């Protein structure tokens, strides 16, 4: 198995893990967003979606464990890369100027990433690891978003998530080697659209809930 | 001393085969007992070091740059010739041989040139196998173009970066041998002396350009691949580090220097634009396929080119050479441009330029076609001059480009010092008095890949090579001398910088030993060089120390040798009482102002022997025997 460790342990291998875990998250985000759209159906629609989801039982647990593993991989590898990259230029430049390659998204990956980690923990503590025996998920959510600070924080987090995937999505394709002059412009466009969907799609939810609450 | 070129017997086409068979072989297991010093990692040195290591020899390789991949060969643009006859246009070894001999104005050795043509095809095979991305046709086969006025399409190319790609091929082969431990690579080292033991070349002295240390290295043979000396002119198309030091030091140790006055001036370079200028940039010769060269008819006409009507333009090459027109050989085109400028018809701010106009070609073929052919050259031109050649004619002027002269070598590429081999532009062997386009790359790689691997074995098989060590007096004395010289340069602390003196030397040579020479000028140049040399040793300022990186000191050492060598060039030019190829003495020209050779008295190689400091060099002659070609006068009318 040393070949496996060698391959994944290399610089490109680490990026492979980032790309696969990151892309999986993107997939998860799509599913998560689709589910969340039930909110627009009102309290009952959303609650029945939640019940439905939980009735899947062990499948949910498996998915959760999978996500947790991917999260560990993504976060730990991301942290390693960040640390290594810092080390690779011990003496910094006095003047820094971009030649036009980087974007806000690409330049802030580790920071938006770190923020997302904190957000996810917060988010899970808020809506996942709570006692739901006496209260429906819809009520938890709408109660939370009746605080304006919550809304602002969530909207901000979603913009940051959008920023993270605006670079992350196409970058993952590039890492996986999927760069072809014919398709790369499409992938770039897709990244942009996806980041807007994430930002606006998720971002509008708290606003909507706070409005109806 | 008798100069024996060791040309094998037999018919021309069989000499090389026969010689290879007659050379004694070294048992493969014994090859690893020999250590070979290869100085230089250009096409010649890179290919030689790699090929010798592949055979099993232990190789030590040296270069001035920070990596072997940056040798000056990297800058060659146009292409490399080979007699593959892929285009079915009746090319052959014999034709390539003949073109090269004739192009060299019948001042090269038949046997060497024929061998060059014979191995030219192998070079292309080798390079393709290494992954050199030559240009190809849609069908997947290799593309060729005709170059430098050749009548056949035999030039292989990789965009405008042929030298780069060939060198990277050789560098990759070298890298493989470095990884295999067969080549020990010494970068940022400058050879400052050659060490002889019992009359054999057994080592070198180098300066470590990082630490400043003077190091000695031993070997069983020394292979010099240190390139040409065009930088003696200060301004040339050569890279900044090109120098004559290695060759000149070998010359001082007894290697003869052949034909030093054979230098080539390239007609299409970007003109000089100020005294601060550090080097000249070549624009590919191919531009003359479509560009028309002209100057205003009236001297002193300072109107901008678009204001000068057709009737007041002088397309002087087309006028004087109706059949070849703008495609006359390099030396003819260069001399004519100079002549126009001397008459006050030169254009641009300095008056030292002529127009190369694409207006008619653009009108005829359209801008797109021209852009496809020359787009990258036009871009390069615009980058440097800020003028757009699509709208305004280019300005060009001749510049020193290549040196045909070099250390004398025999058929085995061995100099007059046993065990000292010389390859590539550093030797004099194949181009006679003038080199054809795309044949320097061919020669460098032929020497390195396909000649030295055989001939060096022949030397080892016949030579007695007792063990030497760097503690021996020959080495310690040479190192001491190098150290003294360095310290002396640093101690002068005068009032002129190295570049300042180098620039003056360049001017002297350009004016009196350049495109057109005459006895009065050459004689004057000699005295000027002598006094400049004395001034150098009294008034140069070299800052810094010898114990770390000191680029001024590096340049000072090179200029000191240029100051010695330039006199040899002038002496050679004075001695050759004829005009041929790159050497044009105004006293020897035809009525049509063409070079007039004197085959009766000067059909020879002039080989110069060092006689000691302050003494005139000793002349030796290697007669050139032509059994296979008829000597003709060139005519491009």
């Amino acid at each position: 198995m040393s070949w496996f460790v060698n391959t994944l342990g290399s610089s490109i291998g680490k990026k492979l893990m980032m790309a696969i875990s990151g892309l999986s998250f993107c997939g998860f985000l799509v599913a998560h967003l689709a589910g969340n759209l039930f909110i627009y159906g009102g309290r009952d629609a959303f609650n029945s979606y939640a019940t439905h989801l939980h009735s899947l039982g062990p499948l949910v647990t498996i998915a959760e464990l999978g996500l947790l593993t991917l999260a560990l991989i993504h976060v730990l590898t991301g942290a390693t890369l960040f640390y290594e990259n810092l080390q690779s230029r011990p003496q910094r430049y006095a003047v820094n100027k971009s030649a036009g390659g980087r974007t806000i998204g690409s330049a802030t990956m580790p920071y938006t990433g770190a923020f997302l980690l904190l957000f996810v923990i917060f988010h899970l503590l808020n809506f996942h690891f709570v006692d739901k025996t006496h209260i429906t998920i819809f009520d938890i959510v709408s109660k939370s978003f009746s605080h304006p600070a919550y809304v602002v924080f969530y909207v901000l987090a979603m913009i940051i998530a959008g920023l993270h995937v605006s670079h992350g999505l196409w970058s993952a394709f590039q890492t996986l080697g999927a760069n072809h002059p014919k398709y790369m412009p499409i992938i770039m466009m897709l990244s942009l659209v996806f980041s807007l969907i994430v930002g606006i799609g998720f971002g509008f939810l708290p606003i909507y809930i706070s409005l109806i609450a | 001393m008798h100069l024996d070129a060791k040309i094998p017997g037999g018919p021309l086409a069989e000499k090389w085969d026969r010689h290879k068979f007659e050379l004694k072989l070294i048992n493969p297991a014994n090859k690893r007992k020999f250590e070979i010093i290869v100085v230089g990692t250009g096409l010649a040195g890179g290919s030689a070091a790699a090929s010798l290591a592949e055979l099993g020899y232990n190789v030590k390789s040296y270069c001035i740059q920070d990596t072997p991949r940056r040798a000056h060969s990297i800058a060659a643009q146009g292409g490399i010739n080979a007699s593959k006859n892929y285009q079915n246009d009746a090319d052959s070894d014999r034709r390539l041989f003949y073109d090269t001999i004739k192009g060299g104005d019948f001042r090269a050795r038949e046997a060497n040139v024929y061998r060059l043509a014979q191995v030219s095809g192998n070079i292309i095979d080798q390079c393709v196998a290494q992954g050199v991305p030559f240009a190809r046709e849609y069908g997947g086969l290799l593309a060729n173009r005709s170059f430098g006025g050749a009548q056949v399409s035999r030039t292989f190319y990789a965009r405008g970066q042929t030298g780069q790609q060939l060198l990277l091929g050789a560098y990759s082969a070298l890298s493989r041998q470095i990884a295999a431990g067969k080549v020990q690579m010494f970068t940022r080292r400058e050879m400052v002396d050659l060490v002889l033991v019992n009359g054999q070349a057994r080592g070198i002295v180098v300066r470590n350009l990082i630490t400043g240390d003077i190091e000695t290295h031993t070997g069983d043979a020394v292979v010099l691949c240190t390139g040409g000396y065009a930088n003696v002119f200060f301004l040339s198309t050569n890279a900044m580090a090109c120098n004559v030091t290695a060759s000149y030091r070998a010359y001082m140790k007894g290697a003869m220097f052949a034909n030093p006055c054979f230098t080539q001036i390239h007609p299409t370079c970007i003109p000089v634009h100020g005294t601060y200028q550090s080097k000249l940039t070549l624009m590919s010769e191919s531009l003359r396929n479509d560009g028309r060269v002209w100057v205003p008819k009236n001297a002193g006409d300072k109107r901008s080119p678009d204001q000068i009507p057709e009737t007041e333009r002088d397309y002087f090459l087309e006028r004087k050479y109706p059949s070849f027109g703008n495609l006359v050989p390099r030396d003819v085109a260069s001399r004519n441009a100079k002549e126009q400028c001397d008459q006050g018809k030169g254009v641009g701010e300095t008056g030292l330029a002529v127009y190369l106009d694409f207006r008619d070609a653009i009108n005829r073929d359209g801008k797109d076609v021209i852009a496809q052919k020359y787009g990258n050259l036009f871009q390069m031109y615009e980058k440097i001059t800020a003028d757009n050649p699509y709208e305004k004619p280019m300005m060009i002027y001749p510049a020193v480009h290549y040196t045909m002269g070099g250390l004398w070598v025999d058929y085995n590429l061995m100099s007059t010092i046993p065990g000292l081999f010389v390859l590539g532009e550093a030797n004099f062997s194949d181009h006679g008095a003038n080199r054809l386009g795309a044949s320097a790359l061919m020669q460098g790689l032929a020497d390195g890949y396909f000649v030295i691997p055989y001939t060096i074995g022949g030397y080892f098989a016949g030579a007695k090579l007792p063990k030497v060590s760097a503690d021996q007096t020959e080495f310690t004395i040479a190192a001491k001398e190098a150290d003294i010289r360095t310290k002396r340069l640093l101690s002068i602390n005068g009032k002129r910088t190295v570049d300042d003196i180098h620039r003056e030397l360049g001017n002297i040579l350009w004016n009196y030993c350049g495109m057109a020479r005459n006895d009065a000028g050459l004689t004057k140049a000699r005295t000027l060089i002598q006094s400049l040399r004395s001034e150098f040793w009294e008034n140069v300022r070299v800052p810094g120390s010898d114990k770390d990186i000191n680029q001024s000191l590096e340049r000072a050492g090179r200029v000191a040798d240029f100051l010695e060598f330039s006199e040899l060039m002038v002496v050679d030019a004075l001695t050759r009482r004829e005009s041929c190829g790159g050497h044009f003495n105004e006293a020897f020209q035809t009525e049509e102002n063409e070079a007039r050779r004197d085959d009766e008295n000067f059909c020879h190689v002039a080989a110069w022997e060092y006689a000691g400091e302050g003494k005139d060099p000793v002349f030796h002659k290697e007669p050139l025997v032509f059994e296979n070609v008829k000597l003709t006068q060139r005519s491009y009318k």
Partner: protein
Amino acid sequence: MTKTINLTLKVWRQPSTESKGGFETYHASDISTDMSFLEMLDVVNEKLTMDGKEPIAFDHDCREGICGQCGSVVNGRAHGPEKGTTLCQLHMRHFSDGDTIAIEPFRARAFKVLKDLMVDRSALDKVIQAGGYVSVNTGGTPDANAIPISKEIADKAMDAAACIGCGACVAACPNASAMLFVSAKVSQLALLPQGRPEAARRVTAMVRTMDRMGFGNCSNERECEAECPKEISITNIARMNREFFKAGFFSAVK
């Protein structure tokens, strides 16, 4: 038309690898706008020499943008502000009278400063030595036209092979990664049939050596591509990644 400008230079001076460096300020006056950047430095150096000071050490050789020996970071940009241009081909007409120009060496853990603006880029050679070649000895190769190669592939290989090994990609990369350099060589040889037989071995060895040399990781920030004087594309990085995964997961190479 030629004109002259005056500039203030802030140049990184560092006597040796071990010593601590710092910026020094110099005035460059009457600089012709036709000069190249290196010629401007020549002028400054001539003056420093005559003033009894040590000239600025900087690497250069061909001065026509092909050898890859020159290169510094000028106002935060490797090889200066012009796209697709090496420092030696950058002309002073791109600066204005009164400009202040900061000049620093290429910086990366893998590139040690030797003196002033000169750095040690031998790590790049080490990567090539690990496998940037086709293992053929001199002689015994088939005829050059024995294997047809489509023009498209040959052109792509040439695009990658145009790399001059200057190290600007490393200098410009926020992570000091050498992926563009390494991928250019891997790509060139992976595209050509001559390079295929040892493609797996090559890419594995080169990537591992690259990692060992202390370069950073690629974050696909594309600064390398934007700064490369030969405008080498990051499609080569994608190709190298593909080759690397193929080699790592599906070849016999361990």
